[in-house]
């Protein structure tokens, strides 16, 4: 039996993802420092409204409110014993919302990073990471998620641990990383590195890609890096709605719905098949993205100049793939 996401990918050229969970929940009154996952229990109506916002804007896929719902993140709120329950409820509310929509909408169980640094540089062992991801994944699947959706990962080891955990419970999954440091992930992974890693997995995801990071321009450059490596599985693009700006004591993302429409078109031209937003992306942005994708034709693979002209400048000159940037100082052991 194939999963709903694979089914939709087989039927359709592109799928619309969802927008921001955090931004939306903060707009609904979530306080900084509060664990959003606790709202699954205390404010299920607001979580339903979050999901309905994406569904009504035309999303084919939406992510559950469970990004920080793993043992090591919930421990910071002393809720580490409720991992299964909070995740199950996150997915249950999603299942209800999707089933009520009257069309095929994928409930994607969001799984974020552990927040720990993995061995050998950090403390978290591969085995512990697998356990952490598996516990959360079980809750999400028990609540009726169609697929698991790993996102905002920086370390290849952590991505692999999640792949192993999802394999253990036989759940289909998608996994994206964040390329926020000179075009690479915080741990130095390039777009090409990620393709090589994903292709080498025993338990390959249904789709892979990039989310969050810096601005839409950087994300597009990463997509081109993916496409150039000719991956065998579909690419996901979930970029932020511009860059946060501090205006009169409040935070605004400078990405307008029009800009996100342009971003969606360029993402499709760059090879993405699942296109959504991340931080700052609200239903109005999703509506504009869908309208742009439906009404305007495909274009050629965008070049860096086009991206820069339409979406703004890049945060770094190189993304580690163009031979630009410096290289590591070599041969450090001097001979006596």
């Amino acid at each position: 039996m194939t999963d709903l996401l694979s089914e939709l990918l087989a039927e359709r050229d592109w799928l619309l993802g969802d927008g921001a969970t955090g931004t939306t929940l903060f707009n609904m009154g979530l306080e900084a420092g509060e664990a959003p996952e606790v709202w699954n229990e205390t404010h299920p109506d607001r979580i339903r409204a979050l999901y309905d916002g994406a569904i009504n804007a035309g999303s084919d896929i939406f992510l559950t409110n469970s990004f920080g719902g793993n043992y090591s993140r919930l421990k910071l709120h002393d809720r580490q014993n409720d991992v299964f329950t909070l995740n199950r409820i996150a997915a249950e509310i999603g299942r209800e919302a999707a089933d009520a929509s009257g069309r095929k909408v994928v409930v994607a169980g969001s799984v974020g990073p552990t927040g720990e640094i993995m061995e050998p540089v950090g403390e978290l062992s591969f085995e512990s990471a697998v356990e952490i991801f598996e516990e959360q994944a079980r809750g999400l699947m028990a609540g009726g998620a169609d697929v698991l959706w790993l996102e905002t990962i920086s370390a290849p080891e952590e991505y692999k641990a999640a792949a192993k955990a999802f394999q253990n419970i036989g759940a289909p999954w998608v996994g994206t990383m964040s390329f926020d440091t000179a075009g690479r992930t915080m741990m130095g992974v390039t777009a090409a590195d990620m393709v090589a890693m994903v292709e080498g997995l025993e338990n390959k995801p249904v789709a892979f890609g990039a989310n969050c990071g810096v601005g839409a321009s950087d994300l597009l450059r990463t997509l081109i890096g993916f496409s150039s490596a000719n991956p065998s599985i579909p690419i996901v693009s979930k970029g932020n709605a511009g860059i946060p700006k501090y205006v009169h004591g409040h935070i605004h993302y400078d990405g307008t719905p029009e800009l996100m429409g342009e971003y969606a078109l360029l993402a499709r031209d760059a090879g993405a098949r699942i296109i959504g937003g991340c931080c700052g992306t609200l239903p109005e942005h999703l509506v504009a993205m869908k309208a742009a994708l439906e009404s305007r034709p495909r274009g050629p693979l965008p070049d860096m100049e086009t991206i820069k002209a339409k979406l703004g400048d890049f945060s770094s000159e190189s993304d580690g793939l163009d031979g630009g940037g410096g290289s590591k100082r070599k041969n450090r052991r001097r001979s006596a």
Partner: protein
Amino acid sequence: MSDEEEDLILSELSDDDLVLQMMDDLYDGMKEEIIESVNILLERGWTPYDILTKSLVEGMAIVGIDFRDGILFVPEVLLAAGAMKGGMAILKPLLIETGAPRLGKMVIGTVKGDIHDIGKNLVAMMMEGAGFEILDLGINNSLEDYIGALEAENADILGMSALLTTTMPYMKVVIDTLKEQGKRDDYIVLVGGAPLNEEFGKAIGADAYCRDAAVAVETAKELIARKHNAREA
């Protein structure tokens, strides 16, 4: 690694070569070699302060430059910082004993409501690597936590980190409180975190926004030097 690398005997190197070697070993995150070299220099009569400033701090500065330039990434920096820490464990008590001059003390922490700490930890490590004393308050700090620690520690620098757009504004609350209490000019205030930028740093009244850990170190050094000059003038 080639075979001749295995043959390298640290104790046979001249002081100059050993110092260069230490910079290389820091770059490669070789903790045991750093510890060995620190001990060799101590045996040769180097002062703890010279070992710190002329080998370890210089070596970490190179790591910082390559991190800033997107050549080294977090894993390599963590390994280098780990090696530095190995050397510092030996030097720290000796520095206190010998009354070596202090570069400056920083109180650092993630702001209230924010539980992200990887970036903040990196800054703390790089600052320590540059020879600053660090008091790391961890995550979720109130203005009382910050201001209390600044006073108790007689610190020079306040470092605040935020990874959420919703927690960034709290930095302004802390700075405004320092102003109200007439203490703002007692400290250098550095802010950082993924969603921040220079414009934001200026808007809230910080001394500087630091894009990454390497920039934080450079900025701290520069502002401390400027402060000392201003005092002497």
